């Protein structure tokens, strides 16, 4: 037996020696699912069809536009990025099926920007990317629970949490609408629960809170919501729902000439998406909105200009809006993570790169990111703006004043964050 072990040792040494030779000859070769010497495969699930797809279905096109630009400029360490997109229609069980396909059949290296709290939760419990060691990068949901690094150890958030957003909204209300009656429309699930926690932390008192079950939002429901807000005689109505809920509400409000002071959460606050549903731009005028990234019309901003130019070439005629900007920003951060992971790219090295360098990744956001070895928290704040007569969100007073906070009981403070300059040619370095 000992002789056999020695033989095994000799064989193993020979194999290692051979591997050393191979490693010398092909330095960039790595053995990892979804990674070859020429390609990195990523997978994305989100609603591309159905009522909830409104606006969000532009995200894959935006991400692909940046990846195509990246690939045309040599990719990452010689590898081209391929993005496989699956339509989950915002149905959690379908997100599970499609994610299984991406992992088992398409064999993607990582999941990128899956959308929706319920969907990401369903995938986490049924597909269990954490158990498989599959990175879930930059999820398109602000549910604060995904920052629980023990429970979702391979998941990275990017959007500021709904708790943070509600806390910042609450502070704004305190400063600007003291003594006014406030109403809240929210989604009756974890999305809304997070918002309620943030408002509670901010000490916001509501004259009325109107929940809606996910999937029930439509014009008829909106008429009912308005009846409730009218009865409560609210001055300010916060719409903390998805785009289709915001659009239904504003569309019916326009018909009924119901015009309180609107305050729109970022999830459902993209003006382009709202206007696409037929809501007159004037309804949005003077509404208050929140965003972590610059105004999409701000062509003086180097990131907005850069992304806008690429997108215009990749998807001619498609308006550049918040969903597009966020989609491209996510792809841009992903490219930097892939680059930072080095030529021997693995799932582990990718996550280690975000842990160690993610907080310094260049990106368009005007607020800091919280990535570290002990935190998978992404962006941590917002600036406050108002919608123009044409429905575009711009900073109040013409200057971005950003606020940052956490998902706990920390205070809301003005941010002193200095955004990194864009790397040369918008490529990871």
């Amino acid at each position: 037996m000992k002789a056999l072990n020695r033989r095994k040792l000799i064989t193993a040494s020979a194999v290692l020696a051979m591997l050393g030779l191979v490693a010398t000859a092909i330095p960039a070769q790595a053995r990892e699912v979804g990674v070859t010497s020429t390609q990195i495969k990523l997978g994305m699930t989100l609603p591309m069809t159905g009522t909830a797809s409104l606006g969000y279905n532009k995200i894959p096109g935006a991400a692909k536009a940046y990846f195509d630009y990246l690939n045309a400029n040599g990719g990452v360490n010689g590898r081209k990025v391929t993005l496989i997109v699956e339509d989950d229609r915002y149905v959690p069980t379908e997100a599970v099926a499609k994610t299984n396909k991406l992992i088992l059949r398409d064999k993607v290296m990582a999941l990128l920007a899956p959308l929706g709290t319920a969907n990401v939760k369903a995938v986490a419990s049924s597909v269990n990317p954490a158990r498989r060691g599959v990175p879930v990068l930059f999820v398109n949901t602000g549910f604060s629970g995904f920052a629980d690094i023990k429970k979702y150890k391979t998941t990275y958030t990017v959007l500021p949490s709904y708790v943070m957003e509600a806390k910042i909204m609450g502070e704004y209300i305190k400063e600007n609408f003291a003594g006014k009656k406030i109403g809240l429309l929210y989604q009756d699930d974890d999305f809304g629960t997070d918002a309620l926690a943030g408002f509670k932390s901010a000490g916001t008192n509501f004259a009325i809170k109107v929940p809606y079950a996910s999937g029930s939002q439509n014009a008829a429901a909106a008429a009912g919501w308005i009846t409730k807000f009218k009865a409560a005689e609210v001055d300010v109505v916060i719409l903390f729902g998805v785009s289709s809920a915001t659009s239904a509400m504003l569309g019916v409000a326009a018909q009924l000439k119901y015009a309180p002071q609107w305050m729109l959460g970022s999830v459902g606050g993209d003006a382009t998406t709202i206007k696409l549903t037929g809501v007159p731009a004037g309804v949005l005028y003077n509404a208050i909105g929140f965003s972590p990234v610059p105004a999409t019309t701000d062509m003086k901003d180097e990131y907005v200009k850069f992304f806008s130019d690429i997108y215009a070439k990749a998807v001619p005629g498609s308006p550049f809006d918040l969903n597009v900007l966020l989609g491209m920003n996510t792809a841009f951060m992903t490219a930097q993570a892939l680059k930072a992971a080095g030529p021997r790219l693995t799932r582990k090295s990718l996550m280690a790169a975000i842990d160690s360098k993610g907080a310094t990744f260049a990106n368009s956001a005007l607020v800091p990111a919280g990535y570290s070895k002990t935190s998978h928290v992404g962006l941590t704040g917002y600036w406050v703006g108002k919608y123009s007569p044409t429905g575009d969100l711009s900073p109040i007073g013409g200057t971005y004043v950003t606020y940052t906070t956490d998902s706990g009981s920390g205070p809301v403070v003005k941010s002193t964050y200095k955004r990194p300059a864009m790397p040369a040619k918008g490529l990871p370095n």
Partner: protein
Amino acid sequence: MKKVRILSLLSVAALATTVLVTAPTVAAAAPLCDGKSPIQTCVGATSDGAPYAMQVPANFNGTVALYSHGYRFNVDIPAGIPLVGGYKVTNTPEPVPGGDAEVAKYFFSQGVAILGSGFARQGWNPDSAIKTNVELIDTFKKQFPKTTKVVAWGSSLGGVITQGLAEKHPELISAAAPLCMADNVQPQLQGAGDFLWGVKVLFDPTIKAGNYSAGAAGVAESYADLIKVFTVMGKLQAALATGAWPDTSSATGKALAAAGVPSRSALLLIGLMAGIPTQSAHFDSISGPDGALKLTFPLALSPALAILENGTEAAALAVMATQDVENQAGGAIFDNTQTDYSARIEGERVIYNAALSGNTVIDALLGALSPANPGAPRAVANPAAVAKMKALHTNTGKINVPTILMVGVADPITPAGASQRLVDLYAEQYAEEKAAARKAYQTTRDYKNPVNNLLMIWNTTPESYTKFNAAGSPITTAPAAPGTRHCNFTSAQLVLIAKSLVQASNTGKLPSGGALYTAVRKAGNLSIDKGINFPWMKFYTDNQ
């Protein structure tokens, strides 16, 4: 294939007739063999009176496959009771699953004999069945001294019996395959009790849902429960779209109805808290008909329909097994006085939020089902009966021999989580074995990596499978989707298990590598992906 199965069952029935006519009436006498070739059939009864059947090919190579059948009701069910009416207690031996001729043919082609007992007692019977099997193995070896190896397999409760045999008598068997294995008696009946209790306190408070009287009176009460539960299911199905509540609903149920809570959301909630899968034979919780319901159907309706279909399939067993085990234990065995149903559905409430009609409705339902509501009294067990139930045979999950598990991912009676538990426990066992091997290396300098002794095969569902007619209504007459229903395996899948058992008995190792992947792919709808992970049965949420 159906035709083959029917023929095979007829042949088993013929064997039983032979036993009645010609077999010695004294139990444990030598088997009565027909001496035929190429397949010799022997019948007899073990000392407990359990009839058995052996079929031995002329080219017998010394290996025999012992099959343990699943749960059979231990009382006759009167005609007229939906779905299960007309059942008569039977202890007909079943030497291969469902008399599957393809499986028997494969074994015979390899020179492997088949063997199975009908067991003396039906119902929940692992204690007696394991003993029966031990005796049966001995009887077979005496009759066929050439016997060198025994592989054991079984379905459902037969899976529990098989695993139990492997745990208690690893010296008797070379490999084991518990298929669609039930969990131990307490977790299994806790899940049944949770569902029945939910149906009772919301939809029909006259349902007993356990705590049945002793003897014949209790059996009669269980029959009445069967009728009531199926009646409620029918009413819920009829009102699925409108969300109306059955006229038999409790005061609690009626209050929820008045508050606008749809009955389908209530049904879904009690299904989730009992751990019933949200994919069923015809409802995938993904597909929707073209038109206005394209998205609404999978989001709001399909999960409840799946619970309805699965719950209906599981209800008869839930009622009758509860009555059976209560009868064995001497009193009420279901207790939910300490159960936190809110914790039970913590993971699912966001996933099925739309079908549950949002957090406000979920909280209203959980409030109605909480111990604080006197209108939904919790069930209190008899401690002595619970102690007696716990004393019934319980598998530890220890893997002693090469073991193959296979289960449908949406099996409504023996959920995938029961098999997952063994997978997880074995991961711990393997880690301990590895640590011991490393420790041994310190003194021997001869490291031996422990051999993997567990292969988990999942019978998966298609990505989507609900079909709709031209009017947009779901079609429920199509064959059940793979991975759904109880122990719903194809002949090809069962033959794969048979092949794997034979290989394991020949080599001492489970199949692995490329050959395994190819065989699994050819059998169809199966996955051996180690990343698949199902939650354990809900009982363990309360008892971790």
